[in-house]
């Protein structure tokens, strides 16, 4: 077979596979712009007759068919919780990652390992004791309680990523800066931080996405509009008698969009961070 034909065949195959992979997600997004009536019709209507933003209006409490789900509150909670826990996790993870990359100290290897292992604890298993303890401490169903938990679950991975990025910055740059008159602190902010910045940013975005998408813990630790996040709120639709598919799809789109943007932003760094951290030990 001539190689040109072969190339085209491979391209078409790959394209078809990609299409199939994207299909489910695209179908949800499409459904978000259709009316509930159209979604429920039998036999199915394949090509939508009208596209509408009504579902979005409805879940945010405008228009005629207002849904009883306070999506706006959930959205605000999600933003506050994800952003705060990301900020904390990046700060804590960055200091930790720096220590692991730059200093030798007794127990370094095992500390690192234990930090990483803490990440393996399944959310649901962790949620049971946290639920009880947080209840006693009175921080159940508060944003603070969720933020604390999300910070902790993001720290190990942030450490892993930032450690890798700091390790790529040669140690002698820091020393050169100290000799040039910087304190260790200045040397960090003026030299090492700018060089590892993009890596740290992607660690941050990764932490944000983890928090934004988390469900197992949030579903146990939040109860009301005070703290419920979008993924937990999604379940509100199923709790009702008839499932409001269109509303759910609209909410799904609300959840996806930030994730979509952020993933595009970090994809390059993320892959570099993951593979270099892992392969070059």
């Amino acid at each position, binding site marked *: 077979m001539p190689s040109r034909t072969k190339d085209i065949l491979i391209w078409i195959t790959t394209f078809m596979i990609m299409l199939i992979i994207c299909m489910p997600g695209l179908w949800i997004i499409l459904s978000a712009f259709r009316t509930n009536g159209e979604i429920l019709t039998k036999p199915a209507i394949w090509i939508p007759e009208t596209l509408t933003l009504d579902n979005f209006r409805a879940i945010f409490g405008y228009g005629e068919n207002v849904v009883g789900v306070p999506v706006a509150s959930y959205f605000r909670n999600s933003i506050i919780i994800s952003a705060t826990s990301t900020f904390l996790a990046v700060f804590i993870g960055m200091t930790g990652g720096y220590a692991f990359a730059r200093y030798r100290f007794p127990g370094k290897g095992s500390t690192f390992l234990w930090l990483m292992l803490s990440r393996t604890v399944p959310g649901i298993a962790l949620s049971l004791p946290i639920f009880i303890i947080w209840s006693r401490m009175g921080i159940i169903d508060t944003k603070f309680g969720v933020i604390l938990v999300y910070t902790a679950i993001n720290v190990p991975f942030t450490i892993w990523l930032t450690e890798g990025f700091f390790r790529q910055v040669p140690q002698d740059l820091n020393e050169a800066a100290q000799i040039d008159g910087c304190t260790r602190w200045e040397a960090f902010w003026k030299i090492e931080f700018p060089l590892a910045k993009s890596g740290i940013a992607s660690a941050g975005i990764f932490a944000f996405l983890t928090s934004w998408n988390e469900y197992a813990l949030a579903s146990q630790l939040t109860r009301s509009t005070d703290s419920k996040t979008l993924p937990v709120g999604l379940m509100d639709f199923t709790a009702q008698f008839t499932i409001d598919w269109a509303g759910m799809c609209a909410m799904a789109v609300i959840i996806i969009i930030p994730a979509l943007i952020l993933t595009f932003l970090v994809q390059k760094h993320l*892959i570099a961070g993951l593979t270099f951290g892992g392969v070059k030990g």
Partner: protein
Amino acid sequence: MSRFRRTIRENAVPFALISPAILVILIVVLLPLLFSFYTSFSNYKLIRPDTLWDWIGLRNYERIMGDWDFWVAFGRTVLFLTVALNLEMLFGLGLALLVNKITYGQRTMRTIMMFPMMFSPILVGFQFKYLFNDTIGLVNNALQALGITHEAIPFLVDRWWAFFSIAFAEIWMSTSIFAILILAGLFAMPKDPVEAAKVDGCSNWQVFRHITLPFLMPFIYIAMTIRSLDVARAYDVVDVMTGGGPAGRTELLWTLIARTAYDDARMGRANAMAYVSILLSIFFTWYFFRKLMDARKHLGAF
């Protein structure tokens, strides 16, 4: 004692730098785990706080050891993970090899490939609940419209179809992680050994088998390790899709824990189960991490 003090003093800076991380992990992971370890030896029921002090020794563990439902869920979880991880790896490998071959528009393909990674597990669950729905689901509609089936397939109800559906969702969600990491491996791969092997008369398959694949192994194990860190994400998927039902047909360890703890309010027993699930997770991570280390050693060059 003075040695301890000296160690602290000599390493004051790194210790200070890692202490916030340690502290927050201590509060949010270690303390709760110690607490749940204790409650796994008690008869703690959520609705009766005084039962927290009701020490019953190993009884919870004995109970779950003899609990048929638990072992079914456990077996199903292991089967689920084995099937899902292996298929994800195979599909990911295939996808990566295909994309690697493409010259025109490779970047775009790569980005499209990451599409599922942006979906939170809960969304993935919801998405497939919608698609596999027996009255309005895309899949059933399509099958009927094409005349392949006349009756709707009970994707989320029938025992085996339901297992298929949750595994499908899980694989859809995670294949791209494998594909992306393996692709990174393919990009990092030096050309010389492949060319040398071709000169030595290896067929394409032999080149793949003896040169490419061994080189990719560390990347595959990294993907496995990263994946095994969060296998429990499957809980979210299953919780939305079937909630472990109907009648426990898709019950995984994690949904069983949630049910035992919150619906049955048997915290003590649930915590005992949770410990089993933690060990399972640690085992998977540890196993692949070891494999990663071995593969790295074999490839000395790294």
